[in-house]
């Protein structure tokens, strides 16, 4: 027995849409109920998930637009299961935070929750989609709610230029991806003589020639690369991060960037295996650039939002590194790390927001500090999050980074050696953030008080899940393994044959 995937997918948006017609207080309850329903479904889906079964489970497959060969095809497998759960969980917690946290009194609240609900459905859609056109559609759609969320409820002085920059920057990649996706479908149809179809299975069945694969790969990489964000196309990130309301930013940073990483594993590696092997070195070097640049920026900036923002750049560098190791270990590490990073960065934003409230509203590190003794619970929770961020042995992040580095070690030794420095730098920026935010001298405007019940409701579940995964990371590893192996298999084989070719040429 299984529920059609459309129900958990559209529930948040539908609930939020109904909320539009209700007053703000009711609309938030409704939206949260919708998100809660989806989250409850994800728990059940994880429990119900059969590891041994090959391919997709709970598939919904309808021909949506016949003339364009677009299928409304959804499905879950080991690759997206935990990311879906992550998205549902983070959205739920951030909705609760937005509804009852401080600063929750905002104008046009029902619209705010509508856009968040729509964003949740779009993200889930991108994660569940098993059709390239549908994936692109959801991938672009998930940005639109954030345009409004940041543009209407961001800081008035700077929000419009910032959100315009963010939107155009990220859509430059996404629209190139649209053209590339359509070209993929059309070229495959021409190659096989079948009707136009964008279903992943059909596209994988007949890989394109190397020349086409390569330019299409670059278009897809551009889309995912910008969305992550990764060095050197992270230019929208500082302004974008400064101008989003905190709960929105937590969702954005924790979930949206993961969809980009997921896109590599779901779309790029299986459909363009030759190009993935061809550009492996380039992608690894860029990932290394992200790690080093992101870490360096994260321990120099004093804006707490940007510390987390740049740390995300570095973490996503690690994830990309794992993906383009093009072997099972790396990809498994990447998926695990994607879930971990989402779980870690969301509570980090929550904590930063709480600390900013205690520091007279300033989010600058220089204005914080010294509250650890009077707010031991908050500081302790922060310490857990910090340890998880820096991938302390014992945390699930450690397992993720270990697997990633193991994967790269097997494929590209030199890159692995350099990437190890990133682990060290993560410790520097995470501890710097922790020490300067809660220890040291008491900041000038700081009022020390511990976690209130209302704050705890948001923060504690987020930290509990981190602890749970620290104890039991096998859950994600074990269930995901077969699908993840399968997604990198062809690209790995292509990379292997490429390596032999070069060796022979020498």
């Amino acid at each position, binding site marked *: 027995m299984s529920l059609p995937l459309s129900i958990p997918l559209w529930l948040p948006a539908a609930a939020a849409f109904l909320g539009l017609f209700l007053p703000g207080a009711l609309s938030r309850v409704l939206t949260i109920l919708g998100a809660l329903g989806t989250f409850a479904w994800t728990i059940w889906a994880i429990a119900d998930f059969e590891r041994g079964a090959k391919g997709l489970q709970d598939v919904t497959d309808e021909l949506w637009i016949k003339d364009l060969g677009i299928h409304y095809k959804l499905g879950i497998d080991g690759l997206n299961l935990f990311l879906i759960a992550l998205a549902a969980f983070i959205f739920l917690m951030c909705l609760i935070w937005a509804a009852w946290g401080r600063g929750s009194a905002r104008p046009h609240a029902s619209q705010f929750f509508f856009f968040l609900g729509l964003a949740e459905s779009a993200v889930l859609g991108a994660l569940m989609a098993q059709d390239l056109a549908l994936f*692109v559609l959801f991938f672009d759609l998930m940005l639109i709610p954030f345009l409004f969320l940041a543009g209407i409820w961001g800081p008035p002085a700077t929000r419009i230029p910032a959100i315009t920059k963010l939107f155009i920057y990220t859509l430059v990649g996404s629209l190139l991806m649209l*053209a590339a996706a359509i070209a993929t479908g*059309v070229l495959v149809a021409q190659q096989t003589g079948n009707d136009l179809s964008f279903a992943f299975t059909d596209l994988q069945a007949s890989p394109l020639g190397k020349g086409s694969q390569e330019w299409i790969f670059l278009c897809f990489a551009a889309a995912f690369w910008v969305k992550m964000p990764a060095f050197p196309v992270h230019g929208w990130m500082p302004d974008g991060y400064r101008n989003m309301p905190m709960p929105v930013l937590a969702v954005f940073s924790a979930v949206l960037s993961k969809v980009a990483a997921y896109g590599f594993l779901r779309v790029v590696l299986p459909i363009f295996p030759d190009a993935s092997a061809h550009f492996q070195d380039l992608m690894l070097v860029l990932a290394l650039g992200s790690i080093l640049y992101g870490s360096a920026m994260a321990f120099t900036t004093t804006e707490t939002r940007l510390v987390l923002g740049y740390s995300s750049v570095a973490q996503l560098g690690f994830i990309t590194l794992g993906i383009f190791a093009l072997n099972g270990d790396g990809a498994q590490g990447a998926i695990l790390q994607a879930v971990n990073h989402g779980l870690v960065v969301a509570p980090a934003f929550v904590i930063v927001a709480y600390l900013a409230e205690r520091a007279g509203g300033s989010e600058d590190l220089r204005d914080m500090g010294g509250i650890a003794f009077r707010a031991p619970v908050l500081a302790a929770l922060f310490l857990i999050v910090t340890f998880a961020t820096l991938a302390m042995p014992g945390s699930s992040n450690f397992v993720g980074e270990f697997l990633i580095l193991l994967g790269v070690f097997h494929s590209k030794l030199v890159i692995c050696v350099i990437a190890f420095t990133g682990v060290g730098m993560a410790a520097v920026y995470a501890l710097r953030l922790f020490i300067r935010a809660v220890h040291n001298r008491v900041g000038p405007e700081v009022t020390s008080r511990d976690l209130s019940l209302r704050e705890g409701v948001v923060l504690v579940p987020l930290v509990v899940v981190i602890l749970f995964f620290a104890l039991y990371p096998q859950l994600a590893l074990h269930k995901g393994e077969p699908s993840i192996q399968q997604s990198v298999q062809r690209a790995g084989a292509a990379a292997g044959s490429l390596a032999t070719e070069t060796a022979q040429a020498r």
Partner: protein
Amino acid sequence: MLLAAVEKPSIDWAGVSPLIALLGGSIVVLLAGLLRGRVIREQAVPFLAIVAFGTTIGLGIWQWGDPVDLFVAKGSQGAMRLDELALMITFIVCVAGIATTILSWRALAPREAAHGEYYAMLLTSAAGMVVLAAATNLVTVFLGLELLSVPLYVLCATEMRRERSLESGLKYLIIGSVGSATFLYGLAFLYGAAGDTDFRGISAAISGGAAHDSLLLTGIALTMVGLAFKASVAPFHQWTPDVYEGAPTPITAFMAVATKAAAFGVALRLFDVALIDAHRDWAPMLAALATVTIIVGNVGALGQSSLKRLLAWSSVAQAGYLLAGVVVASQNGVKATVFYLCVYLFMNIAAFAVIIARERETGLGDDIGAVAGIGTSRPLLAWPMTLAMLSLAGMPATAGFIGKFSLIAAASDGGYTWLGVVIVIGSMVSLAYYLKVIAAMWMRPATGAEVATTRADGTPRLAGADPAADLESGPPWEVTFVAVLAGAAILFFGIIPSPLLNLAEDAGRSLGLL
């Protein structure tokens, strides 16, 4: 003696009936406008115009699926052909006509120009568009072109006490005439090369060896230029912003949608039927024009602060996207073009309806400041405008996304993948100005630096005319209704595009392409 040689063509009255409804309606409306009763002039005349448009649509539905050659004289293949392509264009034109009539109902222009004449000219122009879209003979093409253009020249100048409106009419007249003359010249060359004015005759002549005749190539080039004037394809687009800005806004909406639909209807038929065997000669030329148009249109729109000018430039860019469907000369191309034209109808009607509503409400004219802050004060206007802008930019969940999708698919299917990439690059640039409008509506307060100190026509605003105070009256309900309906259509066809795609596919099949 000569007259005796001319045989009366056979006329299929059922096939001609949509055209008769438009032209007959135009006469009825004109005569009704002569009556003295104010109610008749101001209420019954627009109502009759809507009835005429509606009848045309009804007759078109009746004729659907039964393509027929009209006015077939002996030895020719008919002056017109009422197939699915012609009918789709007819539907677009008539829906645009109905929307324009509703938007003009309580507007200034018909009052100044006399109601009867205004709506009669609207109907005549629509009839010209139908003739143009159905024409299968060079002479009929020209007839249709003039029949659509001349009333539009007048309609542009109907706000007679506004200098800009007169300027717009005059400018359109002069530039339109240059376009028509070029077009006619090109048609003459085509006739010279092919020895026939009939589309199928031309096609036969080209496949029979006229393809490399320099007369033919000159003819194609000049015809292309003539059509480019009408469809506002760069570099023949310079009239567009001025004319769009100056014309009464309902007429601008009509011009933007219906003229473009008719021009692309005839372009599809001319290039994909008559000149299909010269495809290798004209396709690269047209693809280059499309590229230039997309770039010029999108870059031109960036700096605009008048919404009508912004939409004019955006319509130039959209013409470039549409050309991609013509370039490939395939069934998919026709389908994509027709589908996009339908979508374009809803997007532009929604946008222009909102502009009209704000023009009448605020006294800021079509300045972008007129829509500032309407996200909170006028959500029923803000949502359609937002959807229109997102759809024009090709965002998912709107009909514009599906439209762009099918255009790019058609382009890459026809071996013009690079043109698809140009389309998406154009869309990226276009985001900058569409977002500006969205930002003004949702993210700026209603008052502030955006409030212009002069009106769109250059006269200073009345002292104390505070836009916030103007909000009290509310927008005219019928304008809001049109905007909401068009906005709903954008969303509906973005999620369930299949019905419209099926119609477009029938139109694509009607030309007998691969």
